[in-house]
């Protein structure tokens, strides 16, 4: 009897701790699938009956959601690619040269608020006439992606055994060949984690897009805030737009849950 009670109490605590996470997302879906009358009803209507996709149709037809989605893909995609191109070799160099002072630099960068990069970069882009361009956005998003990739890759290369690389060196391979053909293939899991985390944190960034982008170059989070909240205050379309922004990220998270956990707990990297 006492054992049963304890089991029940434990099950209850699991429910209590997990439900806020799931309920907010369920409520977001519920809002997006109901008509406006049900959304503003009190007491609230919880289950959409019948569910409607009208909010999603409205969001895409009345706004340039497609364009904003594409802007986000381009900005986060390019910023992640550049970060991989410079960050993977850098991580390797740091790990093999034991240059840990460089990771301290990355940690200080992690501590600095995103806004403090934005002010000087905004001022410079203004002088160069780059404001409102995707180029400016990609450059600014490097603030997020490069530290993440460098930090994760440096940590990952440290865990790789050096014996193979040393054997190749004895056989006469130069440092670059060793990196390209021995270390790089082994680093795939680290590269995958770094790529996805860099992409997610760049995708989630709001303030760079809100400040630097023009009407046509907004990224999704900036667009959802700037365009939708001011031009249409209806809850259904807002919730639908929120889902369009965050669903890709949630899907990515579920797909590689384990790897993300490893990547995040390894020093708690977070962009911006």
């Amino acid at each position, binding site marked *: 009897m006492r054992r049963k009670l304890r089991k029940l109490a434990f099950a209850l605590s699991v429910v209590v701790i997990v439900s806020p996470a799931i309920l907010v997302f369920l409520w977001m879906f519920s809002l997006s699938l109901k008509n406006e009358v049900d959304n503003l009803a009190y007491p609230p209507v919880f289950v959409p009956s019948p569910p409607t996709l009208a909010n999603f149709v409205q969001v895409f037809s009345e706004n340039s959601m497609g364009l904003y989605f594409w802007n986000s893909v381009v900005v986060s995609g390019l910023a992640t690619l550049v970060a991989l191109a*410079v960050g993977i070799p850098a991580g390797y160099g740091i790990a093999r*040269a034991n240059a840990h002072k460089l990771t301290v630099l990355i940690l200080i960068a992690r501590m600095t608020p995103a*806004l*403090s*990069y934005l002010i*000087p970069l905004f001022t410079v882009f203004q002088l160069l006439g780059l404001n409102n361009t995707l180029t400016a956005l990609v450059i600014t998003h490097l603030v997020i992606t490069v530290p993440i990739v460098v930090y994760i890759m440096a940590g990952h290369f440290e865990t790789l055994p050096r014996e193979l690389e040393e054997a190749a060196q004895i056989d006469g391979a130069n*440092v670059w060949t060793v990196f390209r053909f021995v270390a790089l293939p082994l680093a795939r899991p680290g590269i995958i984690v770094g790529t996805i985390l860099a992409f997610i944190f760049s995708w*989630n960034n709001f303030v760079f897009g809100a400040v630097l982008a023009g009407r046509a170059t907004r990224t999704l989070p900036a667009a959802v805030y700037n365009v939708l909240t001011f031009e249409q205050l209806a809850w259904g379309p807002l919730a639908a737009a929120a889902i369009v922004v965050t669903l890709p990220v949630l899907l990515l998270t579920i797909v590689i849950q384990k790897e993300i956990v490893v990547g995040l707990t390894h020093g708690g990297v977070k962009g911006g």
Partner: protein
Amino acid sequence: MNSSALPTVSRPGFLARRRRAYYIFAVPALFVVGAVIIFPWLFTVWMSAFDWRIGSVAHFVGLENYVKLATNQRFLESIVHTFYFTLLAVIFPLILGTAAALIFHREFPFRGVLRGVFTMPMMATPVAVALVWTMMFHPQQGVLNYLLSLIGLPPSLWVYSQTLVIPSLVLVEVWHWTPLVMLIVLGGLAALPTEPYESAKLDGATEWQLFRYITLPLLAPFLIVAAVIRTIDALKAFDTIYVISQGGPGTASETINLYLYLQAFAFYNVGNASAVVVVFFVIILALALVLLHVREKTKWV
């Protein structure tokens, strides 16, 4: 760390040369970091010494921006708001995250799936989440007040109240970031040795005693790491506050970051904003160092 017990030792200069070769790998990244991270730092310090507004000529004013900040009531209040928000947004995720980690450390059905669900908020786009919370906080049609009424509590004004706005914003922050604390503490629990527990159990220790005198002290380093990360992130919080309350009502939830944003991108007063950034960075660095110092000092709890 240095596993190269190779013939390299017999060839002086080889190791140094090899290290230099490795440094070359970091050059492209250093170039990028220099351009988008280090240059903005230096440029910020430079701008902070000017009366600099976008669109007009900048004048050198030395430390005047800093002197003005020291007597700027609104800025000083924003520091108080930031500390209040940070204190709550560190303590609650630490307590709840540790509790959640203790739960997820046990074996139970669907543990993997539920842990995945529990960590979802942390990856969700902050702006999207903030919009949903804004709707939930609505005093008339919001679902939160309905939930309060179900348990017999009077409706709340949430983010529309001067006094409740910061605790309400903390609620969102707790929802968002408790999972990160949970993951860090869970990593700590996985690394705990089993022997102390076995001998304590033989001595008849209760579960609370096990937690208080064995688990908690052993977890201390992980809790401090979580506290440092949480402190930095809470100080830097921007997206959810900006979307949900814009620093209002009035300036009741205006944190340093929101004040900074207004100065820079509503008033285009980048000289003053840069001074705020420098002060802000000093505050973040100081708090992080204090916490790390605590970590060095405490071997107990």
